[in-house]
């Protein structure tokens, strides 16, 4: 793609004419250390007080593995659902003018503001077997509350604004002329969306996905109400950590936390690399 010669070794990006590179970098590093690095290294340090054998015993425990699977699996599913419908919501908000658009726009942010416990209780009431929606789904044999499906529902609710708010501004910037150009070249409406618009939105959609996913993995408040919290079945990893803490089993709690941390970090890193790659291509 670019024809820049391969660089030997590491090099700082050339500072611009704007002064303060040293100052701002120094401040950023200090700030990140204070806010993120110190608490996290404390976590690693605590879990390191366990020996390898003990750590491995906790990590390979069926209950831990199931909890991690449920946490990451539901978060992934919910983020995937949000990518589809969040993009759709953003599309409607950007493309169409209809009465009440501003209200819908404001509503998207509600999951940000609402205490997550409130969301969890509200969703549980709705989806419980005797709730408004649960009652309708019951005859179809679909059980939402107190199952992993309920977790997905809660995480979809929590994660929606992340996708909408990252995709929306990029969508607003789409040049109308690009669509017109595609139309004059003979592309149908569907081809314009899939071949021209969507690829341009992909980086923003990936960002929205990773934010919604990360939020879903860490979500606690809303999930514990709707999940039912059955060990091995619908128990999320953050809940397991809290259970261990309540048993004063700090090493076990920190060990699970450390595993979550490592997994999340790897996944976000991958997403970031995909981002960088696509940004390099599309400028």
């Amino acid at each position, binding site marked *: 793609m670019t024809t820049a010669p391969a660089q030997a070794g590491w090099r700082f990006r050339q500072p611009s004419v704007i002064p303060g590179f040293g100052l701002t970098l120094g401040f950023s590093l200090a700030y990140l250390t204070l806010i993120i690095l110190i608490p996290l290294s404390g976590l690693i340090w605590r879990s390191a007080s366990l020996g390898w054998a003990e750590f491995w015993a906790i990590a390979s425990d069926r209950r831990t593995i199931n909890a991690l699977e449920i946490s990451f699996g539901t978060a992934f599913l919910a983020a995937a659902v949000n990518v589809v419908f969040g993009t759709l919501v953003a599309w409607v908000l950007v493309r169409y003018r209809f009465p009440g658009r501003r209200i819908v726009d404001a509503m998207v942010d509600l999951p940000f503001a609402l205490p997550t416990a409130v969301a969890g209780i509200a969703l549980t009431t709705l989806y419980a077997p005797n709730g408004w929606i649960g009652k309708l789904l019951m005859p179809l044999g679909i059980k939402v509350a107190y199952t992993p499906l309920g977790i997905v529902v809660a995480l979809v609710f929590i994660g929606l604004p992340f996708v909408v708010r990252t995709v929306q501004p990029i969508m607003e910037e789409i040049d109308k002329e690009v669509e017109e150009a595609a139309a004059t070249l003979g592309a149908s409406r569907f081809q314009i969306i899939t071949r021209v618009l969507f690829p*341009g939105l992909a980086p923003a959609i990936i960002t929205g996905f990773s934010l919604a996913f990360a939020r879903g993995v860490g979500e606690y408040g809303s999930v514990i109400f709707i999940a039912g919290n059955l060990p091995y079945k619908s128990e999320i990893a953050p809940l397991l950590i809290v259970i261990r803490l309540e048993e004063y089993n700090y090493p076990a709690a920190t060990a699970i936390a450390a595993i979550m941390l490592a997994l999340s970090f790897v996944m976000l890193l991958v997403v970031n690399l995909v981002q960088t790659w696509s940004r390099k291509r599309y400028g």
Partner: protein
Amino acid sequence: MEVRVANVRKEFERFPALHDVSLDIKSGELIALLGPSGSGKTTLLRLIAGLERPTRGRIFFGDEDASQKSIQERNVGFVFQHYALFRHMTVADNIGFGLKVRNGASRPPAAEIRRRASELLDLVQLSGLEKRYPAQLSGGQRQRVALARAMAIEPKVLLLDEPFGALDAQVRRELRRWLREIHDRTGHTTVFVTHDQEEALELADRVVVMSQGRIEQVGTADDIYDTPNSPFVYGFIGESSSLPVKVENGEIWLADRPIGLSAPHAPEGEATLYFRPHDVELLDGCSGCIAGTVAASRRVAGTRRVELEIGGERQRVEIELPVGHPAAQKSRVAFRPGRWKLFPAA
């Protein structure tokens, strides 16, 4: 392909952008739509492309009524001022896009599309840039890719909306010459919009001068420049000076003096005299001429532009003198326009 615009009217939310416009474009012609902003030139171009639908009237491609066809069916090549390239596609993919979105049997095989893309890149003199992304090209290169993309679908007409508007002067001149060459080589019927008269006059076979949603004049560069048919065209194309005059008994009078020009067919009464500042005959004495005191004198490139105050009303007109002409030193200059035109006072 011949294009015929028949009595087209276009309104945007009740506001008319075009009033009853008709225009015949011959096959293979290079036509410029020229006018100030808001004159409706871009609207007319977009109507031909199908990007807008006429409020009234019809547009024909050959004998076919194109106004009933969608943009996709019209098969026009459209080039936008700001290129409108697909950022996430390589240059080759951009050019091949119009062929790739065809369905079924009309879509050429991939290898054929690739071959066609590189052929067009040769034509627009960008060979070897197939793998680049638009972000890695300069403005002039992007516009050439946009043109290649538009030509890839073998359009019936090529429509360009201020194609050089976003480029700097140097690149503009270069691309102008190059577009003319491409047109001569490929023979596409081409319509381009511009507000730059130099561009229109230099490039086009015929120029369509537009103002306030109407066509003022259609003609070759010579027609438009030498025989403008309205005060607007006189004022808009090239330099012009004007004076309020009166017609009496076939003679033109400025205030209370005849200026030595006769207009036997002009209607009696108030009128405005238009002439080109460089097309004047300087006189010594003055019985039947326009005379004025020099109010200002500026050197402009190869000539000297002199501003004169005429008569009691102190009407100002500009004329051009050769540098070093003795008249420039005098405080009073007398002249008579060479080629001129009278329009009845509005």
